[in-house]
């Protein structure tokens, strides 16, 4: 009898935790239909430049000045970031889910730039480049994640 009560207690706990698993969300379209090409006119010190700016309805505007943004962002984020060597990939659409401990909902949807950074050690030796995924919302960097893969990040573009 005692063991039955314990099993019932465990069953109810499992039920509570199963209830915590978020319900499946509707399939997220990759948003190809939402791709819009916009002409953005910018005024610079020299000549006016016309840029083809990609804006996606779901993922927002593709960052244009991501290289400078990434470099200045990492300068204060990693040791000797200002002395490091950077390589950048092309921005791609992606989304990120929160960890299951925080609900597992989609916490970010935008553009992801794969970046590799070779940082010097304190003795000046250049280390093997480290891969990073830099998450953008428009031109703003939201977060960076070490590595080119994460179980909670889905890259929409290959």
């Amino acid at each position, binding site marked *: 009898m005692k063991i039955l009560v*314990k099993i019932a207690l465990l069953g109810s706990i499992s039920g509570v935790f199963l209830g915590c698993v978020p319900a499946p969300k509707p399939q997220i379209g990759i948003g190809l239909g939402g791709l819009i090409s916009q002409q953005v006119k910018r005024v610079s010190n020299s000549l006016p430049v016309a840029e083809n700016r990609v804006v996606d309805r779901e993922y927002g505007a593709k960052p244009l000045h991501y290289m400078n943004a990434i470099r200045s962002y990492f300068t204060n984020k990693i040791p000797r970031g200002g002395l490091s060597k950077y390589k950048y990939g092309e921005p791609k659409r992606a989304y990120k889910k929160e960890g299951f401990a925080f609900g597992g909902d989609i916490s970010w949807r935008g553009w992801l730039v794969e970046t590799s950074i070779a940082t010097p050690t304190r003795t000046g030796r250049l280390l093997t480049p480290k891969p990073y995924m830099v998450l953008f919302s428009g031109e703003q960097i939201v977060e960076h*994640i070490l590595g080119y893969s994460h*179980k909670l990040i889905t890259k929409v573009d290959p």
Partner: protein
Amino acid sequence: MANFNTHFMVASGASAIVSGTLLSMEVVAPEQAVNAFILGTLGGLLPDVDSAHSTSIKVGFNVLSLLMTIMLIFVKSSTYSLIEMFIVAGLVFVGIRYALLDIFRKISKHRGMFHSIPVAFIWGIVIAILMQYFFGLNSLVSWVYGFMVTTGYFVHLILDELYSVDLRNKRMKKSSGTAMKFGKLKTSKDKIQTAIIYASIPILMNIAPDTTLIVNALFSYDAWLTFKDVLLPYDGRWFLH
């Protein structure tokens, strides 16, 4: 067999050395090194969780029940009322701390497969998976935490084996070989248990985070050079930086 205090002291000492080294090698940030130290120490207590009345099992289940209760509060804080949350949190805590512990005590056997090398690896992999899926940590940090638990676990197994040597009578105690083993093949139940444990490793590795970063950070030539860089003062000036 070493007692709880000895395991705790040795595991925390070893974890301090390893997490300090990882911090110095810039593999982890300072706050991550603290977490790594705590996990390594807990890893050093884990193997005795299968011992029905050990301190480890009480500590282990206290930590687990508190962790699950806090996690539940995180997940449900936006939807549950305070009273609902209080009831459910209490239910979860009591259920894990008492009901699950009691069942676990009945089914586990001390110095069974819990004291084995493959289980040490399984704990590391499980921790890495939990860290990435539950807390969203990156692959490197997830694996570092898993590595720390496995390291602590190994420290425990090695310590138990060292204690099975009777130095005064210059003989091996009966417990020799029971702490650090690859598996048990005496009975058919042992064989099935061992087979399940070994079969679960590739399955878990399939869902585990990417290992490239941890391999580069800890087990590559570059990592070795970094270790050498931080081992001694690079400019020869001791304590004058």
